[in-house]
């Protein structure tokens, strides 16, 4: 581990990307993620072969990512909710063409222009693909600046491994918060496939096939085969990449499920509930897709009830219900519009469940 520094989440993510070998960044300003492009604009031109470019729009930025990833580079873009909506076209093409890249979404309130305050209301968009067509992205949800650094670094490896975009889903709090952070030294993964598919220049007899970076398969049978191939990759992601953190779930009567910033607040609430004699536990999904259904299903065998807490009107709660499969009641508490739930509010929710004998 390197030296401990005090860094803003956005800047820490940018530096982590550089440490992971990212040399190309294409973005467009939008609050609350501007420190990522700003940091990249300072750092990348000073690194040999590095390039930062402020695109004319989020649409252009994600298509620059497509071009750079198609040429074999480690590349990243970042935005916040309305900008991520604009990028969906490009993301769908990137998935279709099987290109690796990392996308950061510092989620803000919506719908529409919404607010610039933290939110988690892009969960559906992030975990269901987001754009048109059958596809998924790996979605990583850090709950601290340190974890944001580690997940960002890993995201590049995972993107290369699966030839699929990886989304870092944070929120305004993770992006803007300053915390002590250590940059881990980059450990290069040896099992990553060589990018023999990249468009870098070809001539007959050069040792590889002509590269065609493409998502168009006009023959339905061929497209179905291609999509099946994508889903084989998603099945492998579900087998290998599902991550979560569990705290005090073994004996828990009430299991809180929360991710990102909300999970930190939920953790404090869980401790307060334990102090008050209520057996509360916490499951924190780290990958939002693939969703950690297994630990939830396991806890559902003994828990009296679940409480899902989100900064939205209830999106992840649907995945929790799918995982619980009716074994026990699943309740929801959420604040939205950029309002962050408080420890007191969560404690009250669980206490009410306990009093109701639920």
């Amino acid at each position, binding site marked *: 581990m390197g030296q401990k520094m005090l860094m803003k989440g956005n800047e820490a993510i940018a530096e982590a990307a550089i440490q992971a070998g990212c040399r190309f960044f294409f973005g467009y300003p939008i609050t609350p993620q501007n420190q990522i492009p700003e940091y990249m604009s300072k750092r990348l031109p000073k690194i040999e072969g590095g390039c930062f470019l402020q695109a004319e729009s989020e649409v252009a930025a994600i298509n620059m990512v497509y071009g750079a990833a198609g040429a074999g580079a480690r590349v990243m873009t970042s935005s916040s909710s309305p900008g991520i909506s604009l990028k969906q076209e490009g993301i769908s093409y990137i998935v279709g*063409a099987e290109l690796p890249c990392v996308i950061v979404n510092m989620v803000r309130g919506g719908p529409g222009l919404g607010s610039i305050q933290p939110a988690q209301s892009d969960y559906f968009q992030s975990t269901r693909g987001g754009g048109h067509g059958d596809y998924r992205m790996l979605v990583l949800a850090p709950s601290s600046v340190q974890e944001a650094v580690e997940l960002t670094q890993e995201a590049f490896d995972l993107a290369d491994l699966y030839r699929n975009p990886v989304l870092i889903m944070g929120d305004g709090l993770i992006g803007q918060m300053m915390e002590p952070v250590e940059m881990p030294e980059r450990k290069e993964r040896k099992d990553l496939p060589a990018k023999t598919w990249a468009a*870098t*220049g070809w001539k007959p007899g050069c040792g590889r096939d002509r590269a065609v970076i493409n998502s168009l398969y006009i023959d339905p049978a061929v497209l179905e085969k291609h999509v099946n191939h994508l889903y084989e990759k998603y099945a492998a992601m579900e087998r290998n990449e599902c991550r979560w953190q569990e705290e005090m779930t073994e004996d828990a009567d009430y299991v809180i499920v929360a991710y990102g910033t909300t999970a930190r607040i939920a953790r404090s609430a869980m401790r307060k509930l334990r102090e008050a004699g209520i057996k509360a536990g916490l499951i924190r999904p780290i990958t939002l897709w693939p969703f950690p259904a297994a630990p939830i299903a396991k806890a559902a065998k003994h828990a009296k009830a679940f409480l899902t807490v989100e900064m939205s009107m209830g999106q992840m709660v649907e995945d929790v219900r799918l995982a619980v499969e009716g074994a026990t009641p699943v309740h929801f508490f959420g604040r939205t519009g950029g309002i962050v739930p408080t420890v007191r509010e969560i404690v009250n929710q669980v206490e009410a469940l306990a009093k109701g004998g639920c």
Partner: protein
Amino acid sequence: MAVVYEKTKLLTDKPLHYCPGCTHGIIHRLVAEAIDELGIQERTIGIAPVGCAVFAYDYFNCDMMEAAHGRAPAVATGCKRVNPKNIVFTYQGDGDLASIGAAEITHAATRGENITVIFVNNAIYGMTGGQMAPTTLPGQVTTTSPYGRDPKLCGYPIRVSEMLATLDGPAYISRVSVHDVKHILDAKKSIRKAFETQIAGKGFSLVEVLSACPTNWGMTPQEALKWLEQNMIPQYPLGVKKEVE
């Protein structure tokens, strides 16, 4: 016997899907010949558009990428920035470049992005069935301007080359036509020049090629070439619009 003329190896053996008499095929050939003659096959990356030329990746015998509608200049930018020694070109139609991709082409041009753009202007959306394009002429009948394009209702056609030539970024912009052999030879020179501009690192180059769409114009191939000459060239004057030495 010596070969006077044969199909360049920079075109694959795949038969072109274009309609009979569509001049996309001529323009493909000119681009492929330019790449061949300049000896840059092994470092050239082409970016295909959405529209009639969507399958261009099947025809150009070099590494290719297929872009979303209008986004080819952005894709080319990403590709070129990663490997500046590559020669990167986009091949785009009028709907792709001048309508949905108006922002991407304008900003690639003003950045002086060192790429080459082949802009095929046939004044209509071909692939989708003959709808009005940003370059459709006033009065021209299309499937979405069935009474003729009315500028009062939907504005005027865009002269892309002249518009982009007002920017500081571009190094070479010209408009050519392929309606007869003389103009085809001129078009070839211009396309070659555009690639040479990129090879020399001078910056953004674009060749607008006036092209015929017999099927959607509702004409024979012969009538279409005549219509191009008589109607499109007055609206879209040929010539070099910008050249930086």
